[in-house]
């Protein structure tokens, strides 16, 4: 018995990798789903966007790349779906140049599904270096940073952009964050220009953003795959995040069981010594 317990505390890492792989793959393959109640902060984000009148402008900032795509891409798609359903106008830019095309692909994909027209319903601005300087200048005049869109079309020749000059004309800024750009948005767009912000983030950095939510510096927070899955449920379009959430549930339970097994082995070995 003691030998078995000792072995339980010393499982080969390759066995753990295999267990995790099977848990993720089988849950997705068998399309297992778990019902969940949306987190309050996600519901609040949904309600804020839902309450915007048609024609309001929502600015999306793509501050992630492919490494955080499984969490943030479904979030982006669910939010874009919500915006287009509500006939809101979308402006997209980003501070992670390597991830920005992901945002553009998602934007064009969802816009196509809702028959939205470029320049009328949505605009893609692209990337400018400078981070804080870009954020500050957006508060004064968008054209001082982005005189044209990503294709070189002057902003004034895009019907949607004619009345949009700075944060005053943007109802909500949605920052999708895999790093510290969200902090910058709070410091520069909210603190300096009082811009309403919803942050969507990877689960790793979500705890860092809770203080902003409690202090009212951001109005909504969508954290990790759970947040994305909740948003998909709220817009009645369960997709990849909901499927991933089932895998995540199984893996979380497995990790807890592994930790438990590790501790049993640890105590058995300690007693032996």
């Amino acid at each position, binding site marked *: 018995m003691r030998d078995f317990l000792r072995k339980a505390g010393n499982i080969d*890492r390759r066995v753990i990798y295999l267990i*995790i792989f099977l848990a993720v793959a089988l849950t997705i393959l068998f399309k297992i789903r778990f019902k*969940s109640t949306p987190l309050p902060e996600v519901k609040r984000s949904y309600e804020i966007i839902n309450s915007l009148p048609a024609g309001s402008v929502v600015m999306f900032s793509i501050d992630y790349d*492919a490494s955080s795509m499984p969490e943030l891409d479904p979030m982006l798609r669910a939010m874009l779906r919500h915006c287009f359903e509500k006939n809101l106008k979308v402006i997209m830019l980003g501070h992670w140049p390597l991830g920005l095309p992901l945002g553009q692909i998602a934007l064009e994909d969802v816009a196509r599904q809702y028959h939205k027209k470029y320049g009328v319903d949505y605009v893609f601005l692209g990337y400018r*270096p400078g981070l804080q300087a870009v954020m500050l200048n957006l508060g004064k005049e968008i054209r001082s940073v982005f005189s044209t869109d990503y294709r070189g079309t002057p902003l004034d020749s895009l019907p949607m952009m004619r009345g949009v000059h700075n944060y005053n004309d943007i109802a909500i800024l949605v920052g999708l964050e895999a790093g510290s750009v969200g902090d910058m948005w709070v410091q520069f767009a909210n603190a300096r220009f009082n811009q309403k912000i919803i942050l969507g983030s990877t689960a790793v950095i979500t705890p860092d953003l809770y203080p902003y939510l409690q202090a009212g510096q951001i109005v909504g927070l969508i954290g990790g795959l*759970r947040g994305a899955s909740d948003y998909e449920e709220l817009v009645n379009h369960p997709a990849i995040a909901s499927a991933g959430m089932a895998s995540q549930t199984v893996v979380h339970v497995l990790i*807890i069981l592994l*930790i438990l097994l*590790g501790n*049993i082995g640890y105590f058995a070995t300690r007693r032996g010594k």
Partner: protein
Amino acid sequence: MKREIPLFITFITGVLLVIALFVPHKPFGQLQQTFNDWLIIVGGFTMILGLDSLLLHNWEKIKRKKEGWISSAFLIASFFITLFWGFGEGAIAHRSPFDPSATFLRYFYTYVFVPLQATMFSLLAFFIASAAYRAFRAKDGNSTLLLSAAALVMLGRVPAGQEVAPWIFAFVLLLLAYYFFKEGSKTTGTQKTLYLIGALVSILLIYPVFYILLHYLNGIADWIMNIPQMAAKRGIWIGISLGGIAMSLRIILGVEKTYLQ
């Protein structure tokens, strides 16, 4: 002069920007805008510097046939292929290197870059699982507290966690009771009584813990995230911010000069 001029520029820039923040009127308000424009331009040029050092570093590795020089060769080849093809097809034909409708870039980005980057990051799941299994040990009070909080949040933040968690925690309590009972049977006197009380308490706790977790796990996870977690984060952030202010002042006043090296 090599040190004095940069220090002077830093001092003047720092002081002017601090004044501009508090006096948003002419000429200072305008200055902030000008500095922002300069920052964007300088930011663009820093990319060239980054590329220069990246290419030189990898070129040196290839030249000296250092360990991993093949990866460096791949890096340089990929860099130039992407650069020239990107300029040719993306920037000239489609007027944007970000345009995913550019065939090569779309192909390269979607089928090479994205899967590679996603794969690198997804490997973390395996390492985290293995590391959690090896490192999360209830060695003392603090680590047990950390372990319990982590388990509650991990289970409280996933659907069906509320249904699974009570069973896991009940099992842990049962194991604890068994452990106390087993240890108690080897001892005598007061120690034996204490072990048996421990076993009894563990058994008595099973039902209340099961009930609480079954009904309130999500609330408990939210409470951990919103109160203790947030208090710790706030403390850390306030400390970081004060440190940032102190460091900025040291740089502006020329006390901190390491950035010149």
